């Protein structure tokens, strides 16, 4: 019996799908799993896990939070970058923030659970916190001294033009002090929860302020990574943490700095990627060389 051609074609398609599923979906990956059992590759194929004191404490490729149970930084350890994967460095919920470059206005709702910080405020708040922890200047351009985005909603008489009628510092609520007292002669108000000043017609105006062009807190300390699991920090971020870690461990800062250098990897072949410090490896080495009591 000859099948109609449309049917025989679909049967051929089904058989092809099944054949390729076995070959490419089982044989190929499982053969590579088997190769991954070979000595030398096995550690990496299993996730580059590391042990300390006989227990597995992490993977050198996966970052982790060096914080206490309340989420506060443990000062004797070098700190990782901010992470938005789950509650931070959760490999079962990897994520980036996906917040855009002009995300500068916080949502200040009457219900604090519905409030949402803009990317700018997140950056400013992180910069201020790192500055305080490591004893460096936490100021940044477009940030208020109290660590939120320095952004005004400027209302004009005729929408986009005309005299200024009202100015609101949109990311600051009571009891804060407006980061500028007045804007072009008009006194600056604090934001009231529950208002959307952009929808109400305010022109969003970020204010640069007088913070230095090159802030003391490095960029990677105030931005969330793409993977949410970034195992590295920049050498600059490691450098500002040296003094604190040395103090906490009663060690010579020069010795700590040397350890950081030993755990800094340069560019691959001299031109790929950027120099980076693996935070977990560095902290493990710290515990081995400069144990705390």
């Amino acid at each position, binding site marked *: 019996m000859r099948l109609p051609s449309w049917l025989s074609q679909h049967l051929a398609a089904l058989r092809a799908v099944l054949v*390729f599923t076995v070959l490419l979906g089982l044989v190929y990956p499982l053969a590579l799993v088997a190769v991954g059992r070979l000595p030398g590759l096995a550690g990496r194929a299993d996730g580059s896990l590391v042990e300390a004191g006989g227990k597995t404490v992490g993977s050198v490729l996966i970052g982790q939070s060096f914080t206490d149970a309340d989420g506060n930084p443990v000062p004797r350890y070098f700190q990782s970058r901010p992470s938005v994967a789950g509650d931070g460095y959760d490999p079962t919920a990897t994520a980036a923030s996906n917040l855009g470059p002009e995300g500068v206005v916080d949502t200040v709702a009457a219900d604090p659970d519905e409030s949402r910080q803009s990317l700018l405020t997140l950056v400013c708040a992180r910069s201020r916190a790192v500055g305080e922890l490591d004893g460096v200047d936490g100021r940044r351009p477009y940030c208020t001294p109290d660590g939120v985005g320095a952004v005004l909603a400027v209302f004009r008489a005729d929408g986009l033009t005309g005299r200024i009628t009202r100015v609101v510092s949109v990311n600051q609520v009571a009891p804060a002090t407006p980061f500028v007292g007045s804007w072009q002669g008009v006194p600056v108000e604090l934001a009231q929860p529950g208002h959307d000043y952009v929808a109400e017609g305010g022109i969003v105006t970020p204010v640069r302020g007088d913070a230095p062009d090159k802030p003391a807190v490095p960029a*990677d300390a*105030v931005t969330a990574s793409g993977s949410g699991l*970034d195992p590295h920090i920049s050498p600059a971020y490691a450098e500002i943490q040296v003094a604190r870690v040395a103090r906490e461990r009663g060690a010579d800062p020069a010795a700590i700095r040397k350890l950081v250098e030993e755990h800094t990897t340069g560019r691959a072949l001299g031109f790929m990627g950027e120099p980076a410090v693996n935070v977990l490896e560095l902290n493990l080495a710290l515990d081995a060389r400069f144990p705390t009591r």
Partner: protein
Amino acid sequence: MSMATAGAVFALSLVAALVAGYRPFGDYLFRVVSGTRQSRVERGIYRLVGVNPAAEQTWGVYARSVLAFSAVSILFLYAFQRLQNHLWLSLGFDPVVPHGAWNTAVSFVTNTNWQWYSGESTMGHLVQMAGLAVQNFVSAAVGIAVAVALIRGFARSRTDELGNFWVDLTRITLRVLLPVAVLGALALMIGGAVQNLSGGTDLTTLTGHAQTVTGGPVASQEAIKELGTNGGGFYNTNSAHPFENPTAWTNWIEIFLILLIPFSLPRVFGRMVGQNRQGYAIAAVMAILALASVTLTNVFELSGHGTVPQAVGVALEGKDVRFDVSNSATFAAATTLTSTGAVNSFHDSFTALGGMMTLGNMMLGEVAPGGVGSGLYGMLILAVITVFVAGLMVGRTPEYVGKKIASREIKFASLYFLITPALVLAGTAVAFATGNNSTALNAGPHALSEVLYAFTSASHNNGSAFAGITVNTPWWNTALGLCMLLGRFLPIIFVLALAGSLARQQPAPASEGTLPTHRPLFVGMVVGVTVILVALTFLPALALGPLAEGL
């Protein structure tokens, strides 16, 4: 060395590697698709599938074979996801919801690999490796096969025969994709990509937090994900995840794998039509557009324009330290210039103009160099349109590599070109008209960019995202699934119809009136036509999104 200098060397080293690979790898591809000696494994596969490898197909039969294979693949993948809780290695995950399973099935079969889900919390290992990764291979092979059928249309005369889809599919998969994927996977494993069947390792971190280090057959999937310009990540954060892309040098390898086949296919074109210089001309068009795009993306990202990048100092949000800004920008350009859509950094947090480049790359039609196969056939369509436009302007006979471009050919080419803009712009408009744009995370022009990006990515079968937008709703999954399906198979049907029409023609001998199509003049004209067509189509939409935000 500054980051900009190192980044430039990084990009130039990729260019050098691709130039070095063009002839040997292109010649190898040529031998694979034009050879007639079948290996024992291949003969076994033809027997199991029940096809005669010596029988050639007309364009209609070839197209119906592509569609039958893809339809069965979609149903198979849908059932696989819906039943995953009953299968081995499901990691305890529930069946995938129906609208999500539809979207993902279409997504992987169309070489899009748009992902509404997080791999680590939705898909078991078996679905990933025996469902999704299989389509990474065969959807790529389908694209190359269709491109080869179009080339046969140019190369052959007075025939209805365009080759045999099942033979092309099998030979491309076994002789090109599988061996290179094995090499790529081994390199990634050496770099640290995981390859196991573990459900995860629970551990306690140095400061006492619980952490689950995930496992999975990642390296094998990662290699073909890049090589086949697929892009669907094993994990949610895709090639930013250290288990998918552990080091700066694996990042180089991944970009190389993305670009290897698309940039080598013009060589196959040149060899098959018997004029290598025609291949060089097409490769030159691709290279000019790609270099311009990679350069601009790097410039925009490194300049760090915008309020938040200026507050930070550099545009580092959504980027990992080991890649930093420049290598992230180069990856972003490569992934959107092709139909890959894998990301090693998050385009949503790019500077407004850097983000616009990723959108613009896709809107270019993914022809520079484009997806595996789809890039070449897209570029050949543009060459056909250019020949026609040039013919109108200077009174030359519209001919391309010995074939007349008459009304039938130009109709297929125009229909091909019109499909994706129609899907993108209509889809975006419908999303706003029905209020489904409200799932965008950001506000203002950036929200339009997020919606526009989603439809552009789906319709062009890219799969990358301005990932802030929530698309796991029945409306979004259905709408984007339709865009992926129509954006893939309608163009394929028109390409094959064009191939059939070209193959039937007599060869037109070159005359005084023939426009040479291998000279710099023609290369420049194809570049011009490509950019102008895209600009005319998409500029209004771009002006309301990224341009409004960035200027």
